[in-house]
């Protein structure tokens, strides 16, 4: 079984811990006075962050856990404050005294630590990486995040779905459409309605365009990190073109507020002209880049994530598919009907992830052509019913999981598990055979989100 998410919510007289696997969901009720639960991190290593987060948010003790450090609460976070509990209503927090964080390190003669971040020397989001180094070889890496934790789960409590939408679509700009589609599915489940096929296809087009933009940016930045800058110049031009198409369709370069239920006219001609050009450009790009031996010397056998490791860690998205695991939320009736093809590679290295991305761009082009439609019928939404809803969407990073509880017409608990949350935890496994100079390349080849991860 693959672990998808593990999170807690507060009920009137107990905490409920929900563990979502791909085949089943387990719900456990635990006492509120002395909350504690048994860890599953020995069987599912990716549960570690989920459990640490749970314990930070609700003060739930994790029995049997070998890592009980705080995850979201950093050095100066006040003690014994559990922000996601319903009785926590403060708007401001005072800084507490500094208590040091014990990094996972390897000791020994001539082993030293390299700390990178949280503020980086490039245009990147904040995050900390702690390396244990033996010379230039990486022995261990600890990823420490949640610097940009905006407490979105708490902010959304008590808001209606309509009020929540602008916040949810701004959790992570690169995945905005995917978050909106997740929310759309939850709204549809809550109102017990079906989406008109034409609208569903239009939304799928937007999702594919978002994926294309993201993958294009990546296939530029990955060679750039291996010292091949002209690929970035070329690919960033392509991704700018794609972004402008997104803007022409949705009036926003990132597609904020794009997933709506109204009747729309789809500018087919413009999109198809762009697709034809992109197809040619990608073909040129692929021929060009495949033929640069010094680049592939860096790509091949660098940052290998073994298929076995990817499976135990429940990796998702491009990272999993490059290691030969066939996971994609898009493998369903709707997408298969439109000739969706899964892109996988076996070697699990940077090169494999690069090739998967290239393949996915080509797949997305084909999919958009299949989805193409002239008239898009809108629909009227009825009132959302109370209940617990969940949904899945595939974005350029992997499978996105969202769950929303609605009570009295407002959100009681919002939980989203970004694909990065799982994949960040598998990142350290890719480092073991490489030198620290390869780290930026490996990190970029996974291209994980910080904003979606930190929530």
């Amino acid at each position, binding site marked *: 079984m693959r672990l998808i998410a593990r999170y807690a919510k507060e009920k009137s007289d107990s905490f409920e811990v929900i563990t979502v696997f791909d085949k089943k969901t387990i719900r456990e009720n635990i006492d509120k006075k002395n909350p504690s639960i048994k860890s599953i991190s020995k069987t599912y290593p990716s549960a570690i962050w989920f459990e640490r987060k749970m314990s930070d948010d609700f003060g739930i003790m994790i029995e049997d856990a070998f890592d009980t450090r705080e995850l979201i609460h950093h050095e100066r976070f006040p003690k014994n404050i559990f922000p996601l509990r319903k009785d926590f209503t403060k708007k401001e927090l005072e800084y507490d005294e500094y208590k040091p964080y014990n990094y996972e390190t390897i000791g020994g003669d001539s082993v030293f630590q390299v700390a990178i971040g949280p503020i980086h*020397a490039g245009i*990147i*989001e904040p995050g900390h990486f702690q390396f244990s180094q033996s010379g230039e070889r990486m022995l261990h890496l600890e990823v420490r995040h949640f610097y940009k934790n*905006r407490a979105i789960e708490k902010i959304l409590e008590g808001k209606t779905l309509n009020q929540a939408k602008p916040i949810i679509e701004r959790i992570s700009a690169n995945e905005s459409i995917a978050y909106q589609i997740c929310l759309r599915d939850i709204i549809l489940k809550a109102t017990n309605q079906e989406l008109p096929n034409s609208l569903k296809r239009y939304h799928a087009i937007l999702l594919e365009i978002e994926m294309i933009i993201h993958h294009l940016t990546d296939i530029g930045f990955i060679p750039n990190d291996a010292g091949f800058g002209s690929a970035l110049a070329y690919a960033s031009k392509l991704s700018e073109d794609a972004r402008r198409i997104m803007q022409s369709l949705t009036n926003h370069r990132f597609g904020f507020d794009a997933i709506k239920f109204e009747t729309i006219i789809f500018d087919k001609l413009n999109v198809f002209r762009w697709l034809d050009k992109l197809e040619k450009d990608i073909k040129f790009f692929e021929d060009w880049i495949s033929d640069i031996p010094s680049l592939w010397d860096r790509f091949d056998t660098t940052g290998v994530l073994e298929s076995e490791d990817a499976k135990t860690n429940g990796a998702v998205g491009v990272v999993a598919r490059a290691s030969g695991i066939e996971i994609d939320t898009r493998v369903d009736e709707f997408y298969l009907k439109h000739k969706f093809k899964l892109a996988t590679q076996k070697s699990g290295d940077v090169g494999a992830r690069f090739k998967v991305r290239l393949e996915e761009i080509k797949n997305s082009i084909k999919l958009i052509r299949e989805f193409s439609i002239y008239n898009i019928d809108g629909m009227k939404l009825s009132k959302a019913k109370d209940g617990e809803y969940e949904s899945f969407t595939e974005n350029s990073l992997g499978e996105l999981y969202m769950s929303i509880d609605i009570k009295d017409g407002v959100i009681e608990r919002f939980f989203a598990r970004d694909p990065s949350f799982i994949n960040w935890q598998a990142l350290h496994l890719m480092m073991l055979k490489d030198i620290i100079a390869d780290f930026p390349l490996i990190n970029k080849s996974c291209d994980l989100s910080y904003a979606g991860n930190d929530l």
Partner: protein
Amino acid sequence: MIKFWTKRFKSNILTENLEFDNMVDSGSCNGCEAECNALSNPYYNLEKLGIYFVASPRHADVMLLSGLMTFNMTPYRCF
């Protein structure tokens, strides 16, 4: 060389080009970062105008801070 510096001190210009910082990101949605990266694509080509993104605020004339100041990032503020 001395002439060069005297002239620049007189005219109050300390650096030759306007240099941006690497951008300090606190609690943004990564949209600002993506757009700042897009500034160096061939369409906008920001460096043509003599504006660079540099690695440290120490080298910079202007610092961009994106997003809201989060609780966990505030202790790292450099201003």
